[in-house]
């Protein structure tokens, strides 16, 4: 088993052979007047071949910025993104364009991400046209089979325009377009957040099927941990620009070690009236990324915060094989042990 200790105390990343994507000490900052928005602060993780890594956290925590930095739409302020051993930020524009056929992104708002004036078959054929792949007939065949793969009837839908379709159908069309260039890595930024629950289930199942069929590796971004857990092998939890916990999906659910992960789990609406007692909504708002709290960034909302939390930043460390957490007093069996010895990494 490959260890996932890339981010512990600045040690060298231990990229194993099956690593497709390695993100090391990624920092993205934006200038806002004279201030700086700390959108992504020193985030490291790896994605292995064929796995789905989930990225979860509340609005504004830096999920999309991380996703955009992975494809270099958003150039990182520092740190690196390695795809199959190539440092993407070191590539020339031409080399980068080539790599981008292998890394595709799909977005939250399916309707506005499709050009309303173009016909569905032209939208889906776009990547082939850009990359000048195949003859006219070959392109048309590929479009047909891809539309069928995502559950859209090419005969009735091909000549229509995006407004004539529902949100779920538009998301299928944008997935078809993303798969046309034959990517290895698919980055999905909230692909189901704008859809209602029944359509959401259709799209999640579709992504699982396509992943198997086209041997895709995926990064799946969303704010709902139940959704993320359903599709992901491992889940990375972000809070205010930081990675706070990373673990196998079932492991994370069974033994969440970060108080924020615990709060995220409590906020999921369970379709079961008998689950009433589990509610413990997170209070307060996400602090401003212009001026993040000292020490642990979650301390202003953490029910277990102690003086140490304001003084020292908890570093990401391994609490169990493959399970990393950044907290001075990680939860054990659902309880914080504030009497425990503080984080040895400090």
């Amino acid at each position, binding site marked *: 088993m490959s260890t996932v200790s890339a981010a512990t105390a600045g040690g060298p990343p231990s990229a194993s052979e099956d690593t497709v994507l390695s993100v090391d000490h990624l920092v993205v900052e934006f200038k806002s007047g004279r201030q700086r928005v700390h959108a992504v602060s020193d985030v490291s993780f790896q994605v292995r071949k064929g796995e789905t890594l989930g990225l979860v956290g509340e609005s504004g925590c830096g999920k999309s910025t991380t996703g955009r930095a992975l494809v270099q739409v958003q150039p990182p302020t520092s740190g690196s993104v390695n795809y199959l051993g190539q440092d993407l930020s070191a590539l020339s524009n031409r080399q980068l364009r080539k790599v981008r056929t292998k890394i595709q992104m799909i977005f939250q708002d399916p309707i506005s991400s499709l050009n309303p004036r173009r016909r569905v078959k032209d939208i889906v054929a776009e990547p082939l046209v850009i990359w000048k792949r195949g003859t006219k007939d070959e392109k048309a065949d590929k479009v047909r089979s891809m539309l069928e793969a995502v559950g859209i009837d090419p005969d009735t839908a091909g000549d229509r325009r995006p407004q004539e379709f529902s949100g779920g159908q538009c998301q299928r069309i944008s997935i078809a377009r993303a798969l046309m260039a034959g990517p290895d890595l698919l980055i999905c930024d909230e692909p189901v957040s704008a859809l*209602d*629950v029944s359509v959401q*289930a259709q799209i999640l199942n579709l992504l699982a099927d396509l992943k198997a069929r086209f041997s895709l590796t995926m990064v799946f971004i969303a704010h709902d*941990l*139940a959704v993320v857990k359903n599709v992901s*092998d491992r889940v990375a939890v972000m809070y205010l620009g930081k990675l706070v916990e990373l673990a196998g999906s079932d492991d994370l659910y069974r033994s969440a070690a970060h108080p924020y992960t615990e709060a995220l789990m*409590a906020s999921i*609406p369970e*379709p079961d009236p008998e689950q009433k007692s589990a509610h413990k*909504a997170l209070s307060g708002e996400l602090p401003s990324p212009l001026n993040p709290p000292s020490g642990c960034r979650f301390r202003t909302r953490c029910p277990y915060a102690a003086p140490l939390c304001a003084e020292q930043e908890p570093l990401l460390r391994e609490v169990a094989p493959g399970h990393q957490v950044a907290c001075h007093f990680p939860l054990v069996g659902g309880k914080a042990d504030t009497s425990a010895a503080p984080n040895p990494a400090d």
Partner: protein
Amino acid sequence: MIGRRGPQNGKRALEFPDVGESDEPLLVVENLHTSFRTGRGTVHAVDGVSLTVAAGTTLGIVGESGSGKTVLARSIMGLLPVRDVIKSGTVHFAGHDLTAMEPDQLREIWGAELSMIFQDPMTALNPVKRIGIQITESLRLHLDMDRKEADATAVELLRSVGIPSPEQRVRWYPFQLSGGMRQRVMIAIALACAPRLIMADEPTTGLDVTVQAQILDLLGKLQRERHMAVILVTHDLGVVADRADEIVVMYAGRVVERAPTRTLFAETHMPYTRALMESIPRLADPSGTRLQAIPGRPPDLIHPPKGCRFAPRCAFAQDKCRESDPPLRTAGSPDHLFACWFPLVHGTSTAPSASASASAAGDTTIDPGPVVQSP
């Protein structure tokens, strides 16, 4: 805190007896129909809906996108466009028939007795007005407060919906607030005159789950404090599972199941309700669990299919389902209504082709109760 309308309010033309004390439900909706004339034909968005809401309770209205939830909510409120709308049926609120009221009588009730929180807070708030003004407008209109009193009340209201530093925030504009804060402001406006019923149309759709939980908890707390009735409209059964007293499930403009919340979950009769429950990913399920997605899409409301409208997507559909429309009826408990020819009993379908396993399971018969509403 904000008191009830006091005797100083001499403007009030209508009397609203406190039906909270009586057995009469606060809201009684009977056989409501709303259709829109469009270029393509007539859209039957709400097609014969009846429901009641008792004072201080929460009714959840659940259904897929396009099932008619918003049109129903607006029809109850009397907030429909005047042109190209065909409507019938009655809405009695505290004994008054809202459907028979003049627009200026309705305006007197909106905000004061009955208020609405809209699906999209950014478009519902006026972008060029400070949020404080937007709250005090209705206070001054309905409660006859002077400026100073209204300003102080606005600050109090913002504090009660959990907005930090409300003294400063009253002077802010909507764009300066996050999505969650804007929805809190919407709630503050809806609460301003202490209405007896709040219609919340997907108040948290589009917000993230942490903010959603905060907003719904807030609404629940204020409801208990003020003994308000709430109608909570959503596409996510999870949202109403532990917050509603009773749930109405809508499909293609109609009520297909209606029951007290616990009964609805424990004894689901309508396959559509079950399908909605199963399409939600659950945290407790192992990762990679295949979701039970409902195939296809809701029907066209201009030419709805003959028979049961869910039949094209229903795993248990029989010939009978495609031929005739199942009426809304009861079975067993009088407060559990459903519209299905072959209801689920203890999770198993009573449809003939599905009964191979059902007969093995034993008791799966259901004695049909009286028909409550024929299609």
